[in-house]
């Protein structure tokens, strides 16, 4: 079991001509949870995507669960899950089909049964076979939760998970976070809801223009 969930060592990331992250360094011990705050455009989403090995540092190195993201991406990816504002869904397939797709790619035994259980758990049974195109924003978030549970990751990355959720949905999300923490999953939670976030997490990292910022 690696000591750190992740280590960010002097990382800078460029997108086009804009530096999304600039000389950032941070480490999170395994099993801990991190609150990631900052204005829009401060680099939170970029950081989460890099932890997910979706993209890689322009300068510096990043290790997740003890392995370098660029070199060991295929070993890291099964252990990490990203919940983003992008839904990652195929609009024309149903929630069930989207979930089964992920399950078959992961190679889960008994995929149909596992997916059906998850669909029930996130209360999508009645509309689970309709194309995602017809879903509300809240329903899409619930599919995203199901995907996260399916992955059962060692590191969970949540990018604004409370957006578009009704009060019931928010409670379910908080319950999910509590469940993940209880299982020993390392967690990064990016949110604007600072007080709520602080209740749920151990540490905090505030970003300002891609660098570590002062908290006022």
């Amino acid at each position: 079991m690696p000591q750190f969930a992740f280590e960010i060592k002097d990382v800078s990331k460029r997108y086009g001509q804009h530096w999304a992250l600039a000389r950032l360094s941070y480490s999170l011990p395994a099993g801990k949870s991190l609150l990631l705050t900052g204005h829009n455009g401060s680099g939170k989403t970029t950081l989460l995507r890099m932890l997910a090995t979706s993209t890689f540092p322009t300068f510096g190195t990043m290790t997740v669960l003890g392995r370098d993201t660029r070199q060991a991406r295929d070993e890291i990816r099964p252990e990490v899950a990203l919940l983003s504002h992008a839904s990652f869904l195929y609009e024309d397939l149903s929630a069930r089909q989207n979930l089964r797709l992920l399950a078959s790619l992961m190679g889960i035994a008994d995929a149909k049964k596992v997916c059906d259980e998850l669909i029930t758990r996130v209360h999508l049974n009645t509309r689970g076979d309709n194309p995602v195109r017809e879903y509300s924003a809240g329903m899409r978030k619930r599919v995203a939760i199901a995907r996260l549970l399916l992955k059962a990751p060692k590191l969970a990355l949540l990018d604004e998970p409370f957006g578009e959720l009704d009060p019931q949905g928010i409670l379910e999300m908080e319950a999910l976070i509590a469940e993940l923490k209880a299982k020993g999953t390392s967690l990064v939670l990016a949110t604007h809801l600072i007080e709520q976030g602080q209740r749920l997490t151990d540490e905090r990292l505030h970003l300002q223009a891609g660098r570590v910022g002062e908290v006022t």
Partner: protein
Amino acid sequence: MWVKALPLTLLAIAVGLIVCHLAVPKTRTWVWKVLAAQAVLMFLVQPYFALTWAPREVMMGDPYRIIYMHVPHMFMAFLALPLNVILSVWYLVVKKSWAVDALSEALAEVGVYLGGVGWLLGSIWAKPTWGVYFSPDPRLITAGIMVFLYLGYLTLRRLIEDPEKRATWSAVVSILAGADLVLTWFATKMFRSIHQLPSSPDTVDAQIVMPFRFSLVAFLCFMFVLVWHRYRLALALRKNEIAPPEAVGQTQVIA
């Protein structure tokens, strides 16, 4: 005797200078100037050789003289663009570097320019010679497609903002384009060719051949200078795009 020696000597000088430039970085400040001077001088003399000194051709009369411009254009394009393919493979497989990317960009632009102009000149030659501007001839079609392929390459580069993606994806496109050139050549060969059969120098009057070789050397110098400058421009643009951020202060953890 001097007829054969002149272009050969000038070629040796040009190649020597190019090798110097590539092998010894310190010479890069002045080699291009010598080559530029050589190109200018040769282009000043070339019209005399091409238009007056070389005799009228028995069957084609005066219009043939356009080969002194058409062929060097095409020849250089067929040098520049396959070189781009090789560099693209290098970029993807061996080592990524901005220098390789900048050089690829320069070669593509110069290659498209020379290939496009050369193709037009070829069309102009075709009309009095074959009676048509265009025909399904293997060399004509392969050259035309090559220009289009790299126009596509250049357009792609212009439409991608991220420098790394631009370099990677244009390298991919170049490799697919390179494979296509080989396939196009064979596909069009399967059609009948009416292009001029290449005359070997032994079968052609030395007086017709010399201006031709002279032109080739002049264009080699010309292309080198063009590519060198375009490369330096591309590299400067790249450096500007990728300038890293300055250092920043301490981290603060709020536990």
